[in-house]
């Protein structure tokens, strides 16, 4: 709450400088008979930005940095007998202290935790005072500096525009930072995972059986029972994706052909948005539908036919996922089919071919790269889809091609491992990051390839 009020005060001060700057500029305009370089409000904006930006920078630096600083400083206050203990983990000690600071006390914490928490609290108070005074001082001082710069010849518009340009450019870099953050967050943990488990075992092993290992087993160097072969997970992922494609490719492609070539404009106006509704339904709804409607239905149908269908069969998840990705295929294919120049169709009709022949022999071959790209994008969507498989697919890693059995997928393993309590530094927790890394690589490759195909063939007819 303190931080929030500080932010509000900083904002108020900068607004104050805006009005001071504006007033000063208006005065100057009267003095110099409209002979000011910029419009008055630019002077106000300059004062505002001069006051706001430096103090905001300090504010964010300090509020983000203080936890780092404190957790580094607290290290020396943890007694030696604790740090020397066999099962000592700094992160756990830190969590204990933080809980104590926030008043979440379970049982009676050891004396050193309470002491450290007291110390921490006093640091927070000191840092609050320092941050507040520093921010306020900077905002007033730099605002005053901005105010002092106001004179007849000061090109405030140019200065303000330069700052805004920089801000716009900076915000566009966020996309790069996000990518870096994603890579950073998975690569580091994956490297640690591959230090524990050889990479070839992960990539080519056929048994996936992660267990939380007790500290004593890890300490004694004894081989655990865990096995981290990711083949069954990827097999399961691709089995479910394949089933999904079996549903969505024919339905999506024929819908796209019908909508772009046969349908009247009325039909098109009705069915195109209808198909897009399918893309707007949240995946958790599909997951619920798969788990509670489709799976039991398949199970009863299967038992009537004498088939043994698992209650979390790959078929149920795959079918529902197929429904989900119909619109991805249909609307992208529709776009590329529409992009085929009308002259090609007219040439076909001119030679006396029927619509069917024009579509199959002229339009589709011309649109094929785009159609293939749309299918690849749909596969990448299916591979990365999470909620449907978490809710409707199983957790047991079976290496099977039978769609009636339960399989598990990469994403559902990631969710199962990372949701809830985790063990620090254990191979099981780290394996989720390695899975995520492989998942990212696969989806990005597909995406690149699809975009490449589209780019390569796009200008052929223009």
């Amino acid at each position, binding site marked *: 709450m303190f931080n929030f009020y500080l932010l509000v005060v900083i904002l108020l001060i900068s607004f104050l400088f805006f009005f001071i700057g504006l007033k000063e500029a208006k005065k100057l305009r009267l003095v110099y008979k409209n002979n000011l370089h910029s419009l008055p409000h630019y002077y106000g904006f300059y004062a505002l930005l001069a006051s706001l930006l430096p103090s905001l920078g300090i504010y964010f630096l300090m509020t983000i940095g203080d936890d780092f600083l404190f957790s580094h400083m607290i290290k020396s206050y943890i007694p030696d007998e604790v740090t020397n203990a066999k099962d000592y983990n700094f992160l756990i000690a830190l969590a204990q202290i933080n809980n104590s600071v926030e008043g979440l006390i379970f049982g009676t914490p050891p004396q050193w935790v309470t002491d450290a928490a007291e110390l921490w609290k006093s640091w927070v108070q000191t840092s609050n005072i320092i941050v507040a005074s520093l921010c306020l001082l900077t905002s007033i001082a730099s605002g005053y500096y901005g105010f002092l710069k106001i004179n007849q010849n000061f090109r405030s518009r140019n200065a303000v*525009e330069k700052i805004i340009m920089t801000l716009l450019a900076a915000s*566009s870099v966020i996309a790069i930072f996000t990518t870096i953050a994603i890579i950073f967050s998975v690569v580091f943990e994956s490297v640690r995972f591959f230090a524990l488990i050889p990479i070839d075992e992960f990539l080519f092993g056929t048994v996936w059986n992660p267990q939380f290992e007790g500290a004593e087993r890890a300490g004694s160097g004894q081989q655990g029972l865990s096995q981290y072969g990711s083949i069954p997970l990827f097999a399961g992922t691709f089995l479910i994706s394949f089933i999904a494609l079996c549903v969505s490719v024919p339905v999506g492609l*024929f819908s796209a052909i019908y909508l772009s070539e046969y*349908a009247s404009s009325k039909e098109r106006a009705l069915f195109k948005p209808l198909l897009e509704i399918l893309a707007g339904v949240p995946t958790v709804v599909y997951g619920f*539908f798969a788990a509670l409607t489709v799976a039991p239905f398949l199970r009863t149908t299967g038992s009537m036919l004498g088939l043994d269908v698992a209650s979390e069969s790959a078929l149920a998840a795959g079918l529902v996922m197929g*429904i989900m990705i119909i619109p991805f295929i249909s609307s992208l294919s529709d776009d590329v089919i529409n992009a085929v120049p009308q002259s090609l169709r007219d040439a076909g009709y001119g030679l006396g071919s029927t619509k069917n022949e024009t579509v199959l022999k002229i339009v589709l071959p011309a649109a094929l790269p785009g159609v293939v790209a749309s299918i690849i994008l749909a596969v990448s969507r299916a591979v990365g889809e999470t909620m449907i498989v978490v809710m409707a697919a199983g957790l047991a890693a079976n290496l099977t091609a039978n769609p009636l059995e339960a399989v598990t997928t990469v994403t559902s393993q990631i969710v199962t491992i990372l*949701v809830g309590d985790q063990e620090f530094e254990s191979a099981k927790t780290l394996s989720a990051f390695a899975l995520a890394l492989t998942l990212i690589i696969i989806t990005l490759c597909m995406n690149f390839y699809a975009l490449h195909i589209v780019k390569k063939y796009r200008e052929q007819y223009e």
Partner: protein
Amino acid sequence: MSKKFINPLEATELVKNSIKKRRAKDNRLRLYGRIAIGMATCFLLFLFFSIFTKGYPGFFQYYVTLDIKFDRERIDPKGDLSDTSLYEGEASNIVNESLFSIINPQGRKAKKEARKIVSSGKDLRIAKLVKNDPSLFGTVTKVKFALDDDIDSFLRGYINRDTPESERRISDNVIAFVDKLSQENRISYEFSDYILKGSASGNPEMAGIKGAFFGSILTLSVCLLIAFPLGVATAVYLEEIAKKNKITEIIEVNINNLAAVPSVVFGIMGLAIFISIFGMPRSIPLVGGMVLALMTLPTIIISSRAAIRAVPPSVRDAAYGIGASKLQVIFHHVIPLAMPGMLTGTIIGMAQALGETAPLLMIGMVAFIVDVPNSVMDPGTVLPVQIFMWADFAERMFIQKTSAAIIILLGFLITMNAFAIYLRKKLERRW
């Protein structure tokens, strides 16, 4: 290879003979197209039908009407209507006594079972009633209480009274009690006041979406506040300011890639960066909103760029012509004219974020939280995650509540998308 010469008359004959077949082929393709569209529509209708038929009863539940003697001494022993005083009071005993006077349970076991007939939220309900209207004290008033979820399921017919007692979730005694209550016309089926006003609860009859709803609103607000300015700024920079060079190309490739990254990966990033490195608490809407903002950013950027591109160059030239600077052109003309398109994209992005579950699971928004979050720093959950959690519970009644929550979520999504379409139709200008 010699070319075979076909004389024109023969050719005409050939075409004439084959035309029927070719037309049939054409009709077949048309038919396949219709079947495909029909299947997709059927899937959609079936999905909605199945959710609605399951979810509609979730908005209702069974209540029992009891005559409650509002005895101030027993309900509010300290007499100040404070929470502690009401907590110390014995409201549930009063309810049970009133119930017992009707069904008359004999023996310890029967009494124990009878106590469970009325939902465990009965004392809270009485506390709420007297807080709102202290004049109730001293009167005997009819009050409606929710029935326990097992009895609710029984009354809906999910539990068959003909199955042997040992395989049933409720005993013969309880069935007799419920029959007695319905004979006296005390059981009613009404619009549930828990589904909208209740929060997360282990008791399905008391569970509601209020907490998740406010969590969703807070999370989406954070998401909007971050993603909209950033997205518009990036779009403006890339379309209007940046020169086409390596760096802008890298940024564009990056944005396209981010759009393809699976959503669960954004959750992992949130976990690793915001929670592990920046030390932010788990399960708070602030972190959820930030993760969703990064996830929806590509959607907003791409649609905003399209909107900016649609503004004709003549507008810019006219502004430059009367002496506007580049930023004046952008802020006074291009952005206002592109705003409808940008807003449409933003609403669609927000709808995406509202339905997103997986990344929020990663950052711990699955915690069981009863309190309604008041600020972005309070732990909370969101609608889709609430649906995910309820879907996992075994109690029959949770299926209905889950479907009801899904109906509400879909309602919001449809409203948002419809608003986006309306905005586009209403405000978009054709140049």
